[in-house]
């Protein structure tokens, strides 16, 4: 019941916040609940046996018997990584959001925080669901909190952006629903209907049936992850959302797309995944370059950060559909790392926008002079986003590139162009906002305060720690992706001419 408790804790917290009388208590209550959730997730991590791998902490109850629907939860290396991303991010995002200026109130209202808590709980549920129907329900349910977080608490143009978000994601969800129903039919044909992942894996199906079902799931996930050309909703939504909403949406919820690609597309339809792999890899490479080029040209800070994410999601999808253990492990690690660096970028630019009263890059200039900590944080987030070695995203991006290269050298090499473009969009952003003579219009800005530094520092520490020592996490991730890789059956090509072990290798172990 540990996973149920983990998902329910923030949801119940959110309900309490929404229903109890308003007041300042709500802010610290939200921090406390998300903090407790983080603590509980660490307990889950402690209970998880890394050596053994596979689905653990499983729970299962029959829910809708005639349809074979179960309330079934469990985590493997993939799910656990994303659950941890969710629980680590949320408390600090909430902390950073406490003074957000909202349309109706000065400072975060309880309703705003309540939706964030509910969203956290639903996200945890999505990453733990081991029943396709349960996953589908929770997947759709996450749209509700985001819809309100954007539509009710966003900035100018929030109504339009919220609708755009909803229409886009609803279309994806509907197509996926068709595929979910299709799975039921197949499963019922084969005997007892069941939506359990374990029962659906290896289900007999015709080549074209498999491909159609694959497409149903893939389309929904490609919208969520945003893959070119289905990406336009993301910059629009981020452009009208508060920074905290953007972090939860881009860093956590969008990962459901790439998570789903591994869990469902590759896991349930391995043949179709291999079939689609060349096309998806091509779309992913287009996303990498296209998103980066758009980010170079972007003038709105929020859109700019969202567009860098389009490029990064391109890398994640590329690694998944390169179908090697190396690239897939890179992608899963990338999901977490991207969450951290994007959180820093959204939150720092969020403070910049709030203080300057404008999101236009051209409205800033020379800010480094009056706000050195703020500019330092922007630079750290930016360097992390451009995958500087020593920072977490480097290892994951490299694994994606070399894993892809081992199967498709041309695609891997073209994707590597992204590292040059990333340097351009990050350093251009920094130069235009932070350097140069102090623009008279930014005179009123102040540097980051204690609360803001407290919210951002954990991310910086994690980015550096995982940059130098990602191995514990990779130990969690590898068995999970290895299993998927085996199901698909493509795997990592052997090195053509393996290098012999050098003579100079140290012989002594220990002393």
């Amino acid at each position, binding site marked *: 019941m540990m996973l149920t408790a983990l998902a329910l804790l923030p949801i119940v917290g959110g309900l309490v916040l929404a229903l109890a009388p308003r007041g300042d208590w709500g802010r610290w209550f939200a921090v406390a609940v998300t903090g407790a959730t983080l603590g509980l997730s660490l307990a889950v991590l402690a209970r998880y046996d890394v050596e053994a791998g596979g689905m653990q902490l499983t729970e299962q109850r029959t829910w809708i018997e005639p349809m074979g629907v179960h309330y079934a939860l469990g985590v493997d290396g993939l799910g656990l990584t994303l659950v941890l991303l969710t629980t680590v991010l949320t408390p600090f995002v909430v902390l950073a959001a406490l003074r957000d200026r909202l349309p109706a109130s000065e400072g975060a209202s309880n309703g705003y925080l309540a939706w964030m808590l509910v969203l956290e709980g639903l996200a945890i549920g999505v990453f733990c669901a081991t029943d396709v129907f349960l996953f589908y329900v929770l997947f759709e349910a996450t749209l509700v909190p985001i*819809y309100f977080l954007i539509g009710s608490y966003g900035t100018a143009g929030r109504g339009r952006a919220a609708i755009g978000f909803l229409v886009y994601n609803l279309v994806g969800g509907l197509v996926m629903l068709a595929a979910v129903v299709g799975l039921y039919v197949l499963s019922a044909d084969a005997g007892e209907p069941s939506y359990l992942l374990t029962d659906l894996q290896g289900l007999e199906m015709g080549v074209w049936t498999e491909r159609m079902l694959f497409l149903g799931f893939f389309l929904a996930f490609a919208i969520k992850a945003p893959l070119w050309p289905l990406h336009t909703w993301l910059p629009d939504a981020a452009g009208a959302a508060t920074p905290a909403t953007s972090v939860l949406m881009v860093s956590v919820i969008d990962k459901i797309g790439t998570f789903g690609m591994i869990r469902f597309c590759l896991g349930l339809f391995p043949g179709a995944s291999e079939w689609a792999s060349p096309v998806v890899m091509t779309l992913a490479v287009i996303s990498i370059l296209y998103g980066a080029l758009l980010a170079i*040209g972007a003038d709105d800070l929020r859109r700019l950060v969202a567009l860098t994410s389009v490029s990064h999601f391109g890398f994640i999808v590329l690694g998944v559909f390169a179908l090697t253990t190396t690239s897939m492990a890179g992608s899963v690690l990338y999901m977490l790392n991207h969450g951290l660096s994007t959180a820093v970028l959204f939150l720092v630019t969020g403070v910049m926008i709030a203080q300057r009263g404008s999101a236009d890059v051209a409205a800033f200039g020379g800010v480094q002079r009056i706000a050195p900590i703020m500019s330092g944080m922007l630079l750290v987030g930016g360097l992390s986003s451009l995958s500087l070695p020593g920072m977490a995203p480097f290892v994951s991006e490299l694994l994606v590139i070399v894993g892809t290269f081992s199967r498709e*050298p041309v695609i891997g090499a073209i994707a590597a162009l992204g*590292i040059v473009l990333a340097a351009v969009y990050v350093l251009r952003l920094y130069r235009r906002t932070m350097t140069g003579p102090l623009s008279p219009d930014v005179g009123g800005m102040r540097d980051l305060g204690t609360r803001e530094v407290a919210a951002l520092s954990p991310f910086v520490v994690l980015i550096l720690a995982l940059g130098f020592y*990602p191995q514990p996490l990779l130990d969690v991730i590898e068995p999970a992706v290895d299993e998927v890789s085996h199901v698909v059956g493509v795997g990592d090509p052997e090195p053509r001419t*393996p290098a012999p072990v050098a003579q100079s*290798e*140290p012989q002594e172990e220990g002393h």
Partner: protein
Amino acid sequence: MNDVLDTAWVLVALPLAGALLLLTWGKESDRFGHWIGTAASAASFVWGAVLFVALAGRDADDRSVTTTLFTWFDVGRVRVDMALTYDQLSALFVLLITGVGTLIHVYSIGYMADDPRRRRFFAFLNLFVAAMLTLVLAADYLVLFLGWEGVGLASYLLIGFWQHKPSAAAAAQKAFVMNRVGDLGMVIAIALMLAHLGTTDIARVATGVPALSDGVVTGLGLLLLLGACGKSAQVPLQAWLLDAMEGPTPVSALIHAATMVTAGVYLIVRSAAIYDASEAARLAVVAVGLVTLLAGAAIGCAKDDIKKALAGSTMSQIGYMTLAAGLGPAGYAFAIFHLVTHGFFKANMFLGAGSVMHGTGDDVDMRHYGALRTAMPVTFFTFAAGYLAIIGFPGLSGFWSKDKIIETAFGFNVWVGLGTLLGAGVTAFYMTRLMAMTFLGRKRWREGVHPHESPAVMTVPLVVLAALSVLGGVMLLGHWITDWLAPVVGEAHHEELPVPAIVLTLSVLVVVAAGVALAWATYGRREVAADAPTDREVGWWTRAARHELYGNAVNDALVVRPTGQLVRGVTAFDKHVVAGAVSGLAGLFRDASQGLGRLQTGFVRSYALVLFGGAAALAAALLAVTIA
């Protein structure tokens, strides 16, 4: 076995700790922060000297010690250990980096005394030293890449240290981005190694090279060369180096002359196994080196900005090293020899230029100098030592190191040899021009400028570096440096020379003398105009050299402007075509809803709310009923 040589990590840890301390400690450390930074670098030098002695005390075939600190990452087919190799090559670099680095730290105490952000400056210098040591100690190409990008970051931060100047911020960005183009080569080379050899361990790659096909080896060589071109400002990725002179002068001395920019040469020499196996890759290296050595020298002749003239010279001298590295086992050791002596005399001259700027109110225009030898005697004499060393005055360090490269180049090919000989003459010309315009002739000082000698904290490092510039040639005594490096880079085979070596040496001296004489006739005996002649008044060759042989124009035309157009094109495409298609779809929904006589947004909103409220309620009810 507990071996002192297993502690090479301490070399990196000391300056890294210094950097972290200085970056996180508050304002109260402003008073003494620079001493922490200097101490960290000095301690690393002392440790480097201890290790060097220990290494020299070992047998010649037992001078490579690899220590694995921990596994950086191990997943799928990739395993990378955080491992350091302390051997003859890295030991030399450690001494150069920490030795020259420490002198420059000391110098900076005086040079940056009035800067309110001096503590941060020292933090970045420490960060640089740590990254550069990682680069040269790495036992794996990916660890090398970590250091490689680390020095790139330090370079970025320090070029843009005075970031309130738009020119400095732009120069920093340009340096980083152009280096990233080179990094693209590095990353693809790493991917290629993993795909074919399954490892990026430098020693294992070396043992695996013989099994590779010619195409792959040449590919690796060219890709690594691309990386080297970026870091070492070699054609075609040279354009960032002159702009990088926006950084404080100690930075130009340490990073953009003595150490970081030579990392490309280090990379090629360290990858000797790859270049030994590919003649095509070696030829490409020679071509890049030759073109850059002549281009840099040409630029050095026309610049009136003392730092840019020196930067052109740096390009050119690194061209010599690259060329030597491309000559294979015959040239590797001489490339490194010239790299070390150049580290001495170029750091010396850059710091001298800084001292001149310090005394003239940060003026960099040599046309505003003249006759500074009397006002700044120590700077003059130390600079003169560097000057004589770089032009190859007999007996000084540069004489030995450059002579060896020219000799080896002639052994390879007469035309390449003639190119290096021509380069030596042009070097003598531009350095004499610089010397004459700065220290000799008549005063052309601007009003209110009273040149004065720099404080001892700045002149003492100058004196030490001047001594090294003079004496650096001792490394060649008894073929010490070639014998020392032979286990790493292979034994040199002496090519048959077209003429006896002594004739070559004399020819070099004649060409150098001609260069000096020509410059003296033009800038020493004749009056130097205090204002530069305009572009119209000078010949096309001067105009071209002034504009850095139009390198920036070429980059703009071929890369920057097309990229800008691509960005605008993609942005417009995204807005009108991709998003347009979607909003067209949304428009259909809206029209449909208007057809029903409802208001668009309100309708969709309430519809969505009802839909989701209903779905959520249904799900909750089902959940409650069935679980209960």
